[in-house]
């Protein structure tokens, strides 16, 4: 029995199927790392599976703190695990290409199911792993649950989860932690009950309030944010986010607060959570308008593939058009339309100063544009930024990742899409951790914790679970902006009809 967490790790690990249930911030990740720490290694690893790269990063961070040898464990998302398994045994051309990663993962998962039935692969799994630990089990859709069950025929499976954090469920058919198909796990169920995140941060009262909110949401009741002393409530108006025209005296309070936390006066980490998961535009707009606000991107974001694919397949003016689109996508580059037409041609200018600029553009671009080598593309990008003074990058992740991929492709002499794949694999391996000031969604920030969290449009979260995930990311300071203090999102499980067989393609969109 662990004195600090109250968990009997021996019991957890000895059982063929076991589970730990805990609210956010109660030390699930900690418990996983405890398992690794006391594991007696004899050649076999513990396989840790989760859903997001953020989840991987936070587990990895704790593992590193405790100096656990890497040979003890392997950590991956269920999607990547299925994909890696498939790529080891199935020719790649039997899988869809990278243009739609969701489709690829879905197909890989189907293959993984078959592969785990093959006798030789079962021997390999048995030789490689002693235990499988699956984090955030509430996010498993039914097909993933079947896959884990398949692994469970060979290896001991231990799961951790929290039904209140199930936020993938509007997409597919999530597994119900309290459902009958998990009865084997429920027999060996333990609970974590101390809100360590807030105790460790010195804000136990905040943790207590978030637990209270959780209780209400779990019961399907409304929450009045006014009731909580530790949480800052900001009332907002629809028009608050269109503040550009307003004078500084009229600047909405929420914008002032955002600007304060983004400025140098605040030097901690900041996470801004936006309720709209399927649309990037609201977040992109904010990131472009608010100085210093970075955007969290999914590593499988279609923008990577689309951009590199258009670089790879165009030449001449079409290539310039692709570069123009890329700069518009990632930078504060409103002016670019005045200089480069959507077909990639440089506009003719009358004004003498402008003629000089457009000539400068033409001089560099024209000799290079007919060969779409990564080197030429980079040169053109740098030159356009230089001449047109495009200094601010709004979507840093996308911009710098694409820049890195271009350099990588040049150095290794490989195609852009291959370089993209390598980069993606690298991120998958090392996970992703967030330090700085970012805007994201619940899906992108799951499993992360941050000193200060600002939740925008809190009344717009689609489900109680989304709202709970958003509210529970903070460790010290929680600011909730909403058009109303009464928040009453529906609980997902009660009112969403489920089709157990289909996996919807959008499932992995934000991973």
């Amino acid at each position, binding site marked *: 029995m662990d004195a600090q967490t109250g968990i009997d790790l021996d019991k957890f690990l000895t059982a063929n199927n076991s589970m730990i249930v805990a609210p956010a911030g109660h030390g699930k990740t900690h418990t996983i790392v405890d398992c690794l720490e006391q594991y007696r290694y004899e050649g076999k690893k513990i396989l840790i599976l989760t859903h997001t790269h953020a989840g991987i990063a936070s587990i990895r961070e704790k593992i590193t703190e405790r100096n656990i040898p890497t040979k003890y464990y392997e950590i991956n998302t269920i999607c990547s695990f299925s994909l890696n398994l498939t790529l080891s045994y199935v020719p790649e051309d039997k899988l869809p290409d990278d243009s739609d990663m969701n489709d690829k993962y879905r197909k890989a998962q189907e293959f993984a199911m078959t*592969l785990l039935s093959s006798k*030789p*692969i079962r021997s390999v799994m048995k030789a490689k792993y002693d235990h499988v630990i699956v984090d955030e089990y509430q996010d498993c859709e039914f097909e993933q649950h079947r896959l884990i069950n398949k692994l469970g025929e060979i290896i001991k499976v231990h799961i951790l989860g929290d039904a209140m954090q199930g936020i993938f469920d509007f997409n597919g058919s999530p597994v119900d932690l309290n459902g009958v198909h998990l009865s084997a796990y429920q027999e060996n169920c333990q609970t974590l009950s101390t809100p360590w995140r807030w105790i460790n941060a010195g804000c136990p009262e905040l943790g207590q309030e978030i637990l209270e909110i959780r209780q209400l949401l779990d019961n399907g009741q409304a929450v009045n944010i006014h009731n909580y002393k530790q949480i800052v409530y900001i009332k907002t108006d629809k028009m608050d986010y269109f503040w550009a025209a307003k004078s500084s005296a009229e600047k909405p309070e929420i914008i002032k607060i955002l600007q304060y936390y983004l400025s140098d006066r605040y030097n901690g980490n900041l996470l801004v959570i936006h309720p709209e998961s399927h649309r990037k535009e609201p977040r992109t707009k904010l990131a472009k308008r608010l100085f210093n606000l970075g955007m969290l991107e999914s590593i499988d974001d279609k923008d990577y593939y689309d951009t590199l694919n258009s670089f790879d397949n165009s030449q001449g003016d079409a290539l310039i058009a692709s570069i123009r689109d890329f700069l518009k996508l990632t930078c504060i580059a409103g002016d670019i339309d005045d200089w480069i037409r959507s077909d990639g041609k440089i506009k003719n200018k009358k004004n003498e100063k402008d003629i000089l600029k457009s000539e400068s553009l033409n001089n560099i671009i024209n000799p290079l544009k007919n060969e779409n080598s990564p080197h030429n593309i980079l040169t053109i990008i740098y030159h356009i930024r230089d001449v047109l003074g495009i200094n601010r990058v709004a979507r840093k992740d996308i911009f710098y990742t694409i820049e890195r991929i271009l350099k990588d492709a040049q150095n290794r002499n490989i195609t852009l899409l291959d370089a993209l794949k390598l980069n993606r694999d690298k991120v998958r391996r090392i996970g992703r951790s967030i330090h700085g000031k970012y805007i994201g969604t619940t899906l992108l920030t799951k499993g992360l914790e941050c000193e200060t969290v600002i939740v925008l449009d809190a009344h717009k979260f689609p489900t109680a679970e989304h709202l709970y995930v958003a509210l529970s990311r903070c460790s010290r300071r929680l600011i909730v902006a909403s058009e109303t203090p009464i928040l009453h999102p529906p609980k997902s499980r009660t009112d969403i009809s489920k089709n157990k067989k289909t996996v919807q393609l959008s499932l992995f969109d934000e991973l």
Partner: protein
Amino acid sequence: MPRIFHLHIENFRGIEKFDHCFNPGLTCIIGRGNSGKTTILDAISYVLTPMHTIPFHDGDFYNCNIENPIIIEVTLVGLSEEILRKFGDRIRGVRGEEIISSMTNPTAQEEGVEDAVTIRLKVEKDLEPVWEVIGDEGVEPRIVRASERELFNCFYISEYTDRHFTLSKGSPLSSLFRQKADKKSEVLNAELIAQLSRDTKQGFESAIGMPEVFNDVIKDISKNASELGISTGTVKASIDQREFLLKDNKIALHQDDIPLRQLGKGSKRLLSLAIQLSLTDPSGIILIDEIEQGLEPDRVQHIVSLLKKKTGLQVILTTHSSNAIVELSCSDLYIRRNQTNGLINIPSTDEMQGTLRKNPEAFFAKRVIMCEGATEVGIIRGLNEYLLRPKGMNLAKLGVRYADGTGKNLTNYVTEFNRLGYPICLFCDSDAPDVNDKKAGFRAIGVVIVDCEGKLALEQQLFKDLPWISIKKLIEYYLNESHNNTKTLYNNLRSYIVKDIQYSEDWWKIELPILRNVFGNVAKSAGWYKNITHGDYVASVIVENLEATNPSFLYNMVNNLTEWMLKQE
């Protein structure tokens, strides 16, 4: 423990294409020289070698054509968990003799499927060998490192066993030390060794980090060596001054200050085998080229039967020694023939086992003359000596071997050798009805038959067709060999010849048709020439006056025999 399930070769030395599924346990490959036996062992050892690289030459390519890459694939089963972990990302399955490469194939889920990995060695015209583990077709192979190949525990006893007595990387001796030392600590202190090489052999013991492990190893080797029939005396490890350039290589086993590499060839090979057998629970794959090398026949037999009894060990050996193969059962034996795509297995029936016990030498031949009995064997030997040799030819060179059908088993042997694809010439009498009955059937399956006229036995044929001068020699020979005098002979034959011949000292020297008959019948029934030496003499007599018998049935028989012997395949 890992063992070889299947071997595939393309364009390696004399082999254009080769496939074979191996037995667990012992496999003995026989065949004429240059049929590719050693190439097969080399191929296996090259794929599974823990060495970093192997020097290849243009001559290693089939027909020296470097455009077609050398490909050697070894599929292994009996995989340890460590191997499964290291090579699992390209795992395959096998069932029966089938390799299942696609893990999405429903067969892979069925009972009886064994885990397998396929390691491929590929050499293209740049001569750089590349080792890979290959999974499904269309999945990119993964490079296999030298240290990973060490896991297969493949050990080759060939001409070059010196390295086996040193602690160089990947040598079984070094594996043995590591095994005993639990892989954790260094048995030898590398720094000290480096220093020692600058000084002398003296004080080597101080470089041994774990003396008890060291002594343990030496004890184990000595025990196994004596089981193999060789005394090791006082073996110890010391610095071999010849190998002063390489670090670990410098340590070699010595016997009374003499490096073991200076022992005789046979002892060296035995000792190197002993080292391999000392590895924990004798395991792994042992390849032995020409096991009889440097060993007395009884030792060959002893070792072969010992290896056959070791379970958990896969032994693949080649031999040219009939001593080796009489110790084995047919199921262990495989025949390698030039320009074929595999090995020929020998059906393990009682008939075949008998054929093998009686005629082990014939299994090494390209073609077999199956002789009815000892006389015929002697005659074939004689024909070789007196007819072929003067022409600058001999049976060995022609790849022809005679076998003794021992009368009653004759037809069995013909059937079994024919089954194995040996071209056969059956040399026999025509007086045994059961044999005669089968001749038409034998001819139909391509057996060439050289037999006597009508229903005659060979002796009858001889006395019918030889010139009288030769007959006199045969009688004279018989009298000498049997210590009979002419009087006894006369008395014995009296009832047949009494009317025609009066006794005198030279009564048998006068040519009479009736005497040809009588001598022929008696020689047959009394077995005057029924052993190999007699047959040999008979042949010398036939050859001496062969032209004088032309034309006769005997003349044609001899002609047919020699023609068949000289026939080039």
